[in-house]
């Protein structure tokens, strides 16, 4: 999976990188997640995934403020199998904390792509839905689903930790039902997402897909 797939037709251009850097980064396309052929196995895997949601510790916006009560004693999300992880490589849930500025969006894309599948995205607040408070700001995106696939939206400004808990429970239900396929949507429509991302991120100096 991490091998550089050279000489095949379907590779990424990585045009944002210098020639030397292109040698360092993979240019393979992302691959969709294939469920286990046996349904019982897949169901078991989904059950396990749903009960160990590890959230990437990346406070991208105001939403970060309510993550702290969520993760500490008052709301104690650990009992629902939720834990914060400092690195994308270990995380399965990306919580978009409200608005995403263009500068952060670039880091969000990078972090998201680095996460291991299956992975899920929860968008907090109004801003990822339709621009929210900053619908007219020159530096925040208005529709987050244009740039990354979102599995669940929680409206509010800010959504309270209680709704976050409710959202996590909802996500668990969806995962158990095998309905959370945002990551596969991303793979299937990769070029569309990438084009949208590049439309707003003007200094694209990273690989097209961050393995």
């Amino acid at each position, binding site marked *: 999976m991490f091998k550089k797939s050279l000489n095949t037709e379907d590779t990424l251009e990585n045009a944002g990188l210098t020639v030397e850097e292109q040698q360092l980064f993979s240019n393979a396309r992302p691959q969709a997640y294939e469920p286990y052929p046996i349904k019982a196995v897949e169901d078991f895997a989904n059950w396990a995934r749903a009960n160990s949601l590890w959230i990437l510790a990346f406070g991208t*916006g105001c939403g970060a403020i309510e993550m702290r009560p969520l993760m500490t004693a008052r709301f104690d999300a650990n009992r629902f199998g939720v834990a914060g992880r400092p690195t994308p490589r270990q995380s399965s849930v990306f919580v978009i904390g409200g608005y995403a500025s263009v500068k952060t969006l670039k*880091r969000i894309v990078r972090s998201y792509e680095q996460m291991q599948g299956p992975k899920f995205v929860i968008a907090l607040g109004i801003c990822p839905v339709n621009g929210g408070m900053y619908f007219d*700001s020159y530096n925040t995106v208005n529709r987050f689903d244009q740039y990354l696939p979102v599995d669940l939206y929680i409206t509010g400004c800010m959504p309270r930790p209680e709704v976050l808990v409710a959202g996590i429970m909802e996500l668990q239900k969806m995962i158990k039902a095998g309905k959370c396929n945002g990551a596969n949507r991303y793979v299937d429509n990769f070029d569309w997402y990438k084009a949208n991302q590049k439309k707003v991120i003007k200094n694209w100096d990273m690989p097209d897909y961050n393995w």
Partner: protein
Amino acid sequence: MTSLNRHTLTGHSAALDFSQPEPVDLSSGKYVKLWQGPQHPGITGNMSLELTLEGDTIIGCKTHVGYLHRGFEKLMERRTFIQNFTVVCRIAVPEPTFNEYLYSHAVEELSGIEIPDRAVWLRTLNLELMRLASFLMWIGGQSGAFGMYTVPNWTLSHRDFVLDLFEEMTGARIYHMYIVPGGVRAGLPEGFEKRARDVMDSTEKMLGQVERVMFNNAVTKARSRGLGIIDPEMIDPYGIVGPNARACGVARDLRKDEPYLAYDQLDFDIITGHDCDAYGRAWQRLQETRQSIDLIRQCLDRMPVDGPFQADMPNVLHWKVPAGETYVKAECTRGEYGYYMVTDGSEYVRRVHVRGPSYTHAIAVMERLAVGCNIADIAGLMVSLHTYPPEIER
């Protein structure tokens, strides 16, 4: 005070050397460049530090901000005066009410509105509660940065109790939108005083436990003593304000120096410290948290129970504020928070500049204090300066 000024102005002190560090030759293999943040648990909010390391010692630090830039000052120029009050609280997420107060105060000053006495006390109470909530979160953050996760569990829960009070008082947990130009939006709900006093009592008790567990802790002491020493000579040239300055023994507090709202009627003294390191600043903030609890109790004691809480207002849908210019400031948890406002007589504000104390604390001060630190201490140092990135970039 004057002696300090004279001293700093001689120009011979190292504190006055603002020059940027020399760039290093990364290809030599001797140095490593490391990004701490924006996606990093040891950073206060969404910002990043570009660190240059020699071994595990930091020899260069650059702060990068802008990950939370929403262009507030631009947005405010195209919203009416009443609409802006809902926007400003988002400038500093953990401390929205200081923005609400200062914005409202600036507008009131320019349009000549006098707010009623009850609104003054309600505002004071609101600001002090905010200070308490913010300090509680900060104590948890500082403790967490040194690897002790017990204290955040306590303080953040107590902060949540304060947020419950806010919810009752203002109708929202985080973005209260309570202080509005002309006054406040409502009086206190029934039974609020009792519940507030209960929260104060339990929080005070908890702070005693925090003092014991965190401040009398061999690990905390070992890691924070001597970390990030602010030379008192740096204070004016670097624009250091608030607890960061008071911990160095500089008795400056806008609540006392240039009293606003009801602070001239409250009984308190400026707390100062003498340790200029991270431990001293933490201790300073712990004492100020206690002071804040005391001030909240005083506010509750003296809160007028009835009377208007809003001044006579024009129709806000087409409210024109006379042309003028003002700078208003208040002491937030991190020091001087200010709003500079210029109006031109139209329905929109001409220019607002929001001055947050983190602007210098997180960039100029941080970049200087980081040099020479161990990489492991950078998170603790960052937290000890108490910076909030959203108020830097707005």
